[in-house]
């Protein structure tokens, strides 16, 4: 009940834990997205292997932006009753979840799938968390594509 809904943590993430954070008496559907560490990624040049990832966040701005995504969801899907976003920092090993997003609604048609999808896209757009890929022979901070606008007040513009 007093667990934070938007949290950056060094501890392993648990899907059971996030389900408890958003579960409510009047909700019957919860959609959870887990972003996990891929050990192998198909590329044009064949498979590329990752040993582990290291995440770094700008705290507390990152938690503030995650809470903002929760507000955006509430505005767009008013039937949503609960949203939680948890993100790891530090070292994450293969198959471990690095981000969990859970959205609870009374029924499954009330926007839980759509809002969860929205949240992961927005997280990649406005939440200041970065990952470093580590291979046997090196490491690199991964950067995303440049976004045309950084005005976070207009999600539509951002998601173009």
């Amino acid at each position: 009940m007093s667990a934070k809904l938007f949290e950056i943590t060094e501890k392993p993430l648990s899907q059971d834990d996030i389900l408890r954070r958003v579960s409510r008496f009047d909700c019957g559907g919860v959609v959870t997205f887990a972003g996990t560490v891929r050990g192998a990624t198909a590329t044009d040049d064949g498979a590329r292997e990752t040993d582990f990832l290291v995440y770094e966040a700008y705290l507390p701005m990152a938690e503030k932006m995650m809470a903002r995504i929760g507000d955006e969801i509430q505005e767009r899907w008013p039937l949503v009753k609960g949203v939680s976003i948890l993100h790891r920092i530090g070292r994450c090993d293969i198959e471990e979840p690095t981000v969990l997003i859970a959205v609870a609604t009374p029924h499954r048609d009330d926007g839980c799938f759509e809002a969860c999808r929205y949240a992961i896209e927005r997280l990649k757009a406005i939440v200041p968390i970065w990952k470093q890929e580590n291979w046997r022979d090196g490491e690199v901070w991964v950067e995303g594509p440049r976004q045309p606008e950084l005005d976070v007040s207009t999600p539509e513009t951002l998601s173009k």
Partner: protein
Amino acid sequence: MNVRLVLFAGLRQAAGFKRDTVSLPESATVADLLDSRVPALRDRTFYVAVNEEFAQRDTILQDGDEVALLPPVSGGNFPSRPPVESTPCPPNSSK
């Protein structure tokens, strides 16, 4: 006036430092700060937050502000792609 500058991830690596306090004339903008302290990052793509809110190049700074330089967040879907090409200046500069 003094502002705190903080860098993350690849930008931190490129600049060679994580935090610094920078003295600037009154009414200095984000662009002034970047030109005076991190000119070497001119060709990188990044965003700027002032006191944890996204800002623009022409945002006017105040004494005690925290200015953060934020690389674009990885899309997650295509981590196998190389970081994006450099752009002439931080995005959304109002020129």
